[in-house]
């Protein structure tokens, strides 16, 4: 069984971070057989982690395992691009929460 290890760098609990984590749960997690390990790093609390991993912009998703390492920037609302990068193209996941929709919800 392949190991799936991800780190998500976020900055505080703002809209971008919430949307990014929700998109991860809906889009990526269900597609990973055998589940995955996700570490969430709040760089506002642990800025040294941002320096160490050269996180310039957030949210930043890093796939540590399997190799090669993949870094995806943004709230993952561009689902096709995300799945393409991670090689998870299929039709079995939930729909993606886009920034447009979340903007409607927040009203």
């Amino acid at each position: 069984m392949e190991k799936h290890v991800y780190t998500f760098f976020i900055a505080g609990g703002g809209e971008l971070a919430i949307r990014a984590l929700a998109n991860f749960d809906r889009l990526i997690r269900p597609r990973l057989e055998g589940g995955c390990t996700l570490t969430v790093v709040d760089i506002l609390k642990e800025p040294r982690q941002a320096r160490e991993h050269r996180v310039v912009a957030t949210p930043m998703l890093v796939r540590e395992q399997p190799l090669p390492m993949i870094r995806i920037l943004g709230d993952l609302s561009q689902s096709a691009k995300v799945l393409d990068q991670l090689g998870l193209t299929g039709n079995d996941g939930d729909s993606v929460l886009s920034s447009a929709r979340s903007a409607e919800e927040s009203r």
Partner: protein
Amino acid sequence: MNQLLDVAPIRRMPSGIRGFEHISLGGLVEGRNTLLVGTSGSGKTLFATELLYRAMTDFGRQAVFVTFEEKPADIVRNVQRLNWDLPTLVLEKKLVILDASLDRTVVEAGGYDLSGIISQITDAVKEIDAKLVVLDSLGALFYQFENPGILRREILRLTDHLQEMGVTSVMTAERLEEYGPVTRYGIEEFVSDCVVVLRHQLIEEKVRRTIQIYKLRGDRHYKDEFPFTIESEGFCILPLSAAELELTQASTADRISFGNAKFDAMAGGGLFQDSVILFSGPTGCGKTLMATTFASEACRRGERVLYLGYEESRPQLVRNAGSWGRDFMKWERAGLLKMVCQYPEAQGFEGHVYAIQREIEQFRPSRLVLDSISALERIGSVRHFREFVIGLTGFVKQQQVCSLFTSSSPSLSGGISITDAHISTITDAIVLLRYVEQNGKLSRGVIIIKMRGSEHDKQFHEYSINNQGLEIGKPFVHVPTALLGIASVS
């Protein structure tokens, strides 16, 4: 309203870059953002790095370098030849380099902001108690990230944040043209309180680098372009025309001897220590003799003199002096005389000014001879030549180095040379040397036509040159055209 009463006045932070305090009238604006713009290759990164280095080494201020463009290793390597040891400063916790350079593995997929780098900067500033943050360069950010809208908003957020933290910050940004929009993306200048433009242009096959303070919100500064060079010690801005505007050089009433009692009498009791004297005359008329007389007097008194020769070589100068009974070799060995001979074309005006300033600062002479200033005239445009003379004159006066410049007239009969026309208002005293035709025989004449701040003899004196040097004789009578051509005595 109470908040407004608490507004603190603008404070300035010296940069430590040679000449920058002078042209900015005090340095960077403390606690605010300065934008440094220039085309590719104009020296932005080096300028930014020097700001940082000077802050740490000259003023004991810790600093953070955020690099969006080059790798930290490249930044360290770039300044190694200047002997700026950045790795040691990092170890000593005086410097943090944040690597925000392009990461090609990153793919964008959705909304984001620059919280990553903002929190890294905040953390680094706190870690070492930094006072200065340098960001190089914003243009590279626009290459790294696809969405310029997000970047504009985030750059504003970043600069606001830096200001809230109370640190002074410097951002660099690219321009596409030397004279056009301030920055490529047209946003950065609005977030900055101070905008500095670096330019480099090719003029008559020579590179001319200039710096201009385009904007400095809320305080005075010079608005012109000033030339600069990049030397072995970093930037060197030459505040040439600024020296003229600011006539703050201390003025003394101390008189010193020219080296000839008769000449001192003609000058109303000698030369002023902080003055610049121009000797103008046709070739062979005795300019080098005058310069030698003036230089020898310093050595005779045990004072140092710097002799800059642009027409004759060292051996020629020594031989000339010897024929007039002056032993230049002896004085040079005694450390009283320093002769520096160079072709005018060896470097540009900026290079010459810098070299002369360095010689003066190291040798600390009480007198300077520049023989001849007209030889330098041909290495650049008239405007730059004039700036060069103004800058040099301002410097020697500030340093209280009594200076003698010689200038060659274009023809044997004298007349006003280009040099004279452009620098006569800058020098304090002007002495003309002329051939005089007397009963079919040529003799030489000397007249002081200007002596700032003093009475002086206005007569045209005959002089001769013998193995003891200069001998000034009686005034001529009836010389109708001394200034304009060969004078004939009836």
